[in-house]
């Protein structure tokens, strides 16, 4: 009996390995191998069109750390991430609280709110570029009509407008993620907690800070970490809206990697930028993964 058990267990383990084999193969081919070669490539100087490489060791990293462009891109990256993330969280939590109430046509309202998150960034950018249009854009027209501005504004071509616009469009596109996540959590808060707070004489604002917010804390931490990682590595939105411009005022690290590799044709240097960017993100990633693992264990 004991022996047959282990035979069966061994056969199960073999079956388990067989089932995971396709995943492991694909992972090695398209993720692990490229990841390792990205690190390896960063030690070379490679000219993209000919793909001729020359070993330069850590020179790329030395050049990179001495370059102003790297540091300014990092600063831009942080401004974009913190700015858009803050707006996403504030808007997202606020909207979730509103949609949690019993408003008219609630499910329609929820669908409309979710929509920006599901459309392609390309569509979002095209629409916003049309809204931002300096001569015929509706945004300039409305703001002129209300009297907020005296002259049409150049939303994407000057600073600090370009950075503000990118942050705002980013918040518009990605805040629905926060709404869904918070809404799902709100629905699980027991009504009894609110009843108890009401009996104790807490008003709506006190109830929010004493009941809702502590209950939302865990989910908010997860959302903030995930969105921080995703916003930090965002490429499409910024590249398509401003292309990093004016000049390099909205250029973030992912855009810098792309420019170095495919516009300046320096693959090795680009790989070095990418590796450094990954190292910065690694801090967030490890914190997030640790947390997920802890949750899985408890």
């Amino acid at each position, binding site marked *: 009996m004991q022996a047959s058990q282990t035979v069966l267990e061994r056969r*199960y*383990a073999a*079956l*388990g390995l067989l*089932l*995971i084999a*396709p*995943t*492991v193969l*694909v*992972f090695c081919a*398209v*993720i692990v*191998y*490229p*990841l390792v*070669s*990205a690190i390896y*490539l960063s030690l070379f100087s490679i000219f993209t069109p000919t*793909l001729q490489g020359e070993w330069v060791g850590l020179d790329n990293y030395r050049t990179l750390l001495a370059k102003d462009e790297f540091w300014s891109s990092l600063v831009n990256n942080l401004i974009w991430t913190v700015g858009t993330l803050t707006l996403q969280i504030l808007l997202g939590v606020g*909207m979730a609280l509103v949609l949690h109430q019993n*408003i*008219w046509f609630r499910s329609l309202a929820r669908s409309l*709110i979710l*929509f*920006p998150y*599901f*459309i*392609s*960034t*390309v*569509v*979002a950018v*095209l*629409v*916003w570029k*049309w809204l931002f*249009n300096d001569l015929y854009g*509706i945004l300039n027209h409305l703001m002129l009509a209300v009297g907020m501005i005296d002259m049409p504004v150049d939303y994407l071509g000057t600073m600090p407008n370009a950075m503000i616009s990118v942050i705002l469009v980013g918040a518009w596109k990605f805040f629905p993620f926060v709404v*869904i*996540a918070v809404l*799902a959590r709100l629905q699980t808060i027991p009504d009894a907690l609110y009843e108890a707070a009401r009996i104790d004489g807490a008003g709506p604002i006190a109830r929010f800070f004493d009941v809702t917010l502590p209950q939302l804390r865990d*989910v908010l931490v*997860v959302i903030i970490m*995930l969105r921080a*990682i995703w916003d*930090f*590595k965002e*490429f499409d939105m910024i590249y*398509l809206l401003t292309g990093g411009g004016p000049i390099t005022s909205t250029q973030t690290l992912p855009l810098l990697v*792309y420019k170095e*590799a495919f516009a300046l044709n320096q693959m090795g240097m*680009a*790989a070095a930028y*990418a590796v450094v960017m990954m190292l910065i993100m690694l801090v967030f*990633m490890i914190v*997030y*993964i640790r*947390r*997920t693992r802890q949750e899985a264990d408890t």
Partner: protein
Amino acid sequence: MIRRVAFNLFAWGIVLAVAFPLFWMLVTSVKPQFELFRRPPTFLPETWTLEHYIRLIQDTPFLTYFKNSIILSTATTLVVVAISTLGAYSLVRFKYRGRESLAFLVLFTYLLPSVVLIIPLYLMLVSMGLSNTIFSLVIAYTTFALPYALWLLRSFMAGIPEDLESAALVDGASRMGAFVDVILPQLLPGIISTALFTFILSWNEYLYALVLVNSDSARPLTTGVMNMLVSSFNIEWSLLMAASVMMSVPLIIVFAFLQSYLTRGFGAGGVKG
């Protein structure tokens, strides 16, 4: 009562403000070109027209892009969902050495930025002679779609009670027999929602398409439509808005019919992580 009405108006005010860009996209796409330059702009079109949609289909490579996107997203979804269903089953229900590290690797790659992988992937696909093909994009899309699908399906799989499988095994089913007869039907909602998310993700991808494909015959919608903006001397906003609407139609269909699946997927993977 007045407070309730006021709150409703306030709530719907915000909802409509958020949805306004999408409304504007729709309105612009059915206005004739000359009406766009009216000042003040007309809120609803004075003359409704479908000329931009017709022009889009007849005079631009839009349909080729559309077809490419359909093939690309469907192929990616099928490959990824097939591999990850087996993989998730193995990760959740089998015990072997390295299982935990593998799960960790999946989560790690799920968070990995595309720009890190794109340089070596580009070199790899060029040296294999695969650049400018839809197939090369399927390979590239696997890099983000597979970890994502695995992670989602893993949490769906973990939600299926283990007793169901044990009962089938006691009744004499083989492990794979139990998987097909017991697990798969239970997992179906999870598989559908994972497939939908993977499809949306592939449909909307831009960076890999930008780098790997450089010919109209293999270009998907994202880079194709963006090209129409960049390459035109005189930007035809109505045409671009019509393209944006058409490009979002498959997403609207997915979204409207399967909203319950979508929200379930969000709860399982996107949030709990």
